């Protein structure tokens, strides 16, 4: 059993990472400046040959790696054809400068980026509905198509390619044209591009946009239902990744002055992907380290000539007849990659969240315990194994501005009329009508498979009903996307808790508050003041909501490490964060013992007092009968009863279908 096998970890990097995280802010800034000074000074001391290596492959790989990391590492979409955007940027530059265009290199940098971005949107638009393996294959195809089009298109120079692409004109300190073969100015050019990319991607990552990417990666459906416009956010991710690739293409083309289809082989996509995975998915420092390793090691091995012994050994082992060790460099490189991935699958410098996800996927994850023990920023607290520590909620009230205060009225909030849902020949809901009044707690009960959760799925837009109407305050919800319905004022929790397991409690809630915010990807990059305001506001609200549900001490803990009861509470807080008009709770008492159930009843009442309308699916009759104002009963997709709790308890049909004859006898 692989999962029982505890592999030793290479842990040279982790102590350094821990040290780094423990530093005060000023020390970090100082160190970063020192590091910057070093990377500016050091290349000038190298021989031109190594400066060249630093430009390509190392620098270009880092830039491409950063772009690909947005797609693969941050958003969790596997892109196997990333080199296509590099090619698009380079060919755009070539066409715009050489024939027809006549632009200077500087004039077309923005154009190259925009064209690559457009290519990203063109590819993403029709394909991002695909997930996982399917998306990977589509992108793989795209990577090949771009190369083959270039190979066969007369205007792109076919196999000959395009020559005489101009260098950029000189800048005050960077003389691109002074000595034609001097790589140093280009090293600084790519360094500058890398810094810009790190800065912009970093801002995105720390914004509403980055949070939505993380949420999509963790649980795309739940993200959509919490109000994340998943399709748009994935498209942004693709476009931003593509733009970085396009910038890389521009830099490469203007330095080398010549491109042809062979510049963009398929295996370049794989090498860059290897760099990202090797370095640590989702981690900027990791991607840089990974790209450096992938770019530099084969070049280093080329120089490593002294190894006659090694050469003979390799010839003997592989039965080869190489005269020079360089012929083995990719072989050695491949072995190094395999060894790395066995001993440190989370990457050289992993991101905390991705390392935790990996631990989970390999069965090393734990329930209610600290995950990924050797990861960089160790989750500090959360050490007890999910003991049931459910306190009765504190008496923190939701602030007045948070939700419209109302007491139970007969005003209709949610109305279902003749709702029918068929799957093939199976009728899951048949002509169900009900209306939920503002400020009440409305229970829905019924046997397993009666259609209760299907009803929630119809209301929240997961399913589109076959026929019938769903109206929230008189406006139809039918046919709207789930995130639009969340915006309109419907929030829900899930039967089998669907938090974003590797995000902190506060970030989970902020995905909810984000549903009401508008910071866009460009806004986040530019750091607009509005964005900062929204971020502060969202964080403050998240803190208040954690207090409201009674788990303020869990703010910084990763959702997965919370005890079961606290996870249920967190999920409720996340749903309330979207400021819903109506809150749908799907079996919130599942798995609770009597004490925990009592605390939940209190919490639901408190939510109701705060003015929210609640619809509750629950099997636990004590909870249902105690807390609900009115109850509807579903059986085989049909509503068989509706009324006050005491009416339902004595209804013959309900007893027959659901409660069972002696359900009350101990």
């Amino acid at each position: 059993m692989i999962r029982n096998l505890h592999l030793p970890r290479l842990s040279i990097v982790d102590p350094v990472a821990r040290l780094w995280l423990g530093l005060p802010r000023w020390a970090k800034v100082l160190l970063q400046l020192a590091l910057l000074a070093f990377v500016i000074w050091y290349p000038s001391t190298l021989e031109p040959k190594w400066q060249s290596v630093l430009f390509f492959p190392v620098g270009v790989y880092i830039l491409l790696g950063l772009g690909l990391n947005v797609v693969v590492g941050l958003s969790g979409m596997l892109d196997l054809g990333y080199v296509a955007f590099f090619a698009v940027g380079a060919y755009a530059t070539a066409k715009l400068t050489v024939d027809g265009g006549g632009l200077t290199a500087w004039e077309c940098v923005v154009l190259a980026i925009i064209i690559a971005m457009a290519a990203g949107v063109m590819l993403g638009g029709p394909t991002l509905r695909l997930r996982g393996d399917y998306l990977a294959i589509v992108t793989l195809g795209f990577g090949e198509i771009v190369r083959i089009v270039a190979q066969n298109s007369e205007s792109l120079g076919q196999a000959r390619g395009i020559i005489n692409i101009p260098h950029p004109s000189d800048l005050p300190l960077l003389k691109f044209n002074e000595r034609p073969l001097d790589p140093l100015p280009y090293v600084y050019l790519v360094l500058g591009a890398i810094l810009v990319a790190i800065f912009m991607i970093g801002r995105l990552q720390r914004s509403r946009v980055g949070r939505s990417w993380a949420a999509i990666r963790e649980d795309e459906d739940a993200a959509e239902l919490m109000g994340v416009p998943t399709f748009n956010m994935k498209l942004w991710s693709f476009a931003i990744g593509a733009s970085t690739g396009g910038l890389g293409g521009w830099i490469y083309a203007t330095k080398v002055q010549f491109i042809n289809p062979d510049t963009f082989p398929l295996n370049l996509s794989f090498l860059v992907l290897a760099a990202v995975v090797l370095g640590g998915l989702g981690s900027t420092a990791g991607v840089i380290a990974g790209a450096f390793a992938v770019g530099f090691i084969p070049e280093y091995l080329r120089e490593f000539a002294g190894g006659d012994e090694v050469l003979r050994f390799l010839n003997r082992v592989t039965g080869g007849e190489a005269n020079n060790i360089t012929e083995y460099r990719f072989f050695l490189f491949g072995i190094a990659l395999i060894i790395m991935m066995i001993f440190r699958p989370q990457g050289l410098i992993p991101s905390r969240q991705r390392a935790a996800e990996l631990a989970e996927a390999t069965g090393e994850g734990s329930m209610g315990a600290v995950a990924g023990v050797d990861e960089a920023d160790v989750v500090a607290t959360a050490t007890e194994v999910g003991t049931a520590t459910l306190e009765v909620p504190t008496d923190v009230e939701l602030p007045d501005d948070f939700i419209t205060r109302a007491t139970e009225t007969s005003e209709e909030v949610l109305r279902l009329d003749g709702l029918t849902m068929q799957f093939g020949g199976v009728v899951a809901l048949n002509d169900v009508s009900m209306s939920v009044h503002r400020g009440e707690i409305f229970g829905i009960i019924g046997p397993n498979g009666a259609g209760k959760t299907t009803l929630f799925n119809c209301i929240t837009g997961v399913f589109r009903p076959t026929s019938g109407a769903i109206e929230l305050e008189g406006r139809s919800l039918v046919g709207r996307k789930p995130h639009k319905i969340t915006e309109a004022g419907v929030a829900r929790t899930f039967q089998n808790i669907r938090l974003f397991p590797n995000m902190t409690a506060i970030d989970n809630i902020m995905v909810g508050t984000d549903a009401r915010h508008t910071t866009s990807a460009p806004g986040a990059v530019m750091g607009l003041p509005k964005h900062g305001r929204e971020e502060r506001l969202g964080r403050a609200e998240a803190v208040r909501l954690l207090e409201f549900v009674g788990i303020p001490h869990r703010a910084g803990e990763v959702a997965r490490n919370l005890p079961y009861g606290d996870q249920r509470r967190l999920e409720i807080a996340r749903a309330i964060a979207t400021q819903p008009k109506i809150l749908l709770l799907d079996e919130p008492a599942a798995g609770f013992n009597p004490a925990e159930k009592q605390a939940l009843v209190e919490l639901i009442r408190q939510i109701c007092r705060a003015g929210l309308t609640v619809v509750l699916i629950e099997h636990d009759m004590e909870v249902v009968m105690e807390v609900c104002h009115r109850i509807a009963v579903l059986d085989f997709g049909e509503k068989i009863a509706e009324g006050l709790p005491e009416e339902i308890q004595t209804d013959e049909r309900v007893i027959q279908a659901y409660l069972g004859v002696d359900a009350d006898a101990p």
Partner: protein
Amino acid sequence: MLLELVDVRVHYGKVEALKGVSVSVGDGEIVTLIGANGAGKSTTLKTISGVRPVTSGSITFDGEDITGKAPHRLVEMGLCQAPEGRGIFPGMSVRENLDMGAYARRNKDTASDLERVFELFPRLLERAGQPGGTLSGGEQQMLAIGRALMARPKVLLLDEPSMGLAPKLVAQIFAIITEINAQGTTILLVEQNATQALQRAHRAYVLEVGRVVKTADASALLDDDAVRAAYLGGGSKPAPAQTPEEPT
């Protein structure tokens, strides 16, 4: 004893989830583990079935030390778990799911076993050709138990079989558990629905934060004031309770 855990410790990372648990199950018994969320009930089952590695302590089954054995080997030996959350194969038909249950058996003549499962769960026969993923929660639970029975286990490990089930179904499932036991299968049952579990079991262990804090005949625990207060609810009416335990 057919199954015996002696001072078993289990860690999740640095955290000790089981702090020296000793549990024994005799041939033909129904033994139940009760306790709050996070007490270590599911972990105990997962440790027995080999899904979680043991830090120290020993597990013997049928006179043989099974500590550290791979789960599929344990199934061959006659120790089978119906996992919490059911874990049915959603793309396979009900019939194929049941066939998977007999996967580890050398004797592939499963006709009589199928007949037995369909007798216990007539609903599964109606759904035999339907993909497992399209079953309702209660049917999936039946399928999970039925699939475990296909391995002809000596000991059946049940993790929260009443989870998420309607009151009427809860009663049915517990009746079937009693029936399976009467047919000769030993059962170790983890339940949040402590009242029902104690009514059906012969003996019980109470777990708290990774330790066994009490063990007695099930009927004695039903009358135990401390247990009543903590796990059975104050009132005389039992909560038709259900469901999962730890986050996974």
